[in-house]
């Protein structure tokens, strides 16, 4: 069913849409950044740079 938004529908829709977009960007940033960093860690690991403790650099799930 449609919710009636009155004469200022565009303002309300824009607000909700903006919030959705910004939140989506935040989620995207967090996810991509995670991929990026784990990727770089794996590359460093492969090139033989490890932390002093001798463990693998990638010990995250």
């Amino acid at each position, binding site marked *: 069913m449609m919710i009636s938004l009155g004469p200022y529908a565009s303002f309300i829709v824009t*607000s909700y849409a903006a919030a959705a977009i910004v939140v989506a960007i935040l989620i995207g940033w967090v996810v991509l950044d995670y991929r990026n960093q784990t990727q770089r860690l794996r590359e460093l690991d492969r090139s033989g740079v490890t*932390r002093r403790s001798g463990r693998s650099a990638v010990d995250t799930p």
Partner: protein
Amino acid sequence: MTLIDLANPTRFLALSARVLPWLAAATVILLTIGLYQSAYAPDDYQQGATVKIMFIHVPNAWLSMFVWGVMSVASLGTLVWRHPLADVAAKAAAPIGASFTFLALLTGSLWGRPMWGTYWEWDARLTSVLILFLMYLGLMALWRAVEDPSRAARAAAVLTLVGAINLPIIKFSVDWWNTLHQPASVMRMGGSTLDKAFLIPLLVMAVAFTLLFVTLHIAAMRNEILRRRVRSLQMMQASRIAFSSDVGTGSRQENASKGAA
């Protein structure tokens, strides 16, 4: 910093991997409920349907201040206790806080147009929020501009604490100066004056957004820890220093965990 960063952040990584799915699930559920409730909330007799903007505007406005508060606590952690996770927390929070502040500003202006007849007015509440936004951006710029994270952390911490003075100004600006913006009706002395029909969805949305913040924050902290790990590995690679000599490792570990305690 190398080891100090690795000592208890490692535990944090393990922990975050466990709690993140649950947090994300809870956020989605609450957000769904909140959105549903706000969709079917009645129109306000004065504001009509535009009152629906409130369910976005107010949680974001609250969070914009809350996040700065979180950052201030983290800054104390950096300066006073030199806690290794503190600057990670502060750095990770800034972009999220800036986003919420941006949303508060945007939805506020969108609400202002029908209500006050203008998108923007230079009054105390609006201005102090704008200053908050600028300070978020300034902090982010500072973090980006300085490569050495521990150096940036301490400077950012000082600045964050100084900026915290802005929080009471935002909160009480409506009381101190008579502004366009309406005074507090939910969080005020002597109980809320808001009708239940609006109050409940508002609170649900507020909790949902807070959960969203916590989720994003933990995820961003995890990324930040990984980024620092990458950096210190790259530094080692760059300087090709054999970090193999184990002299002093023991005391360093000890020191690190002491710092964490």
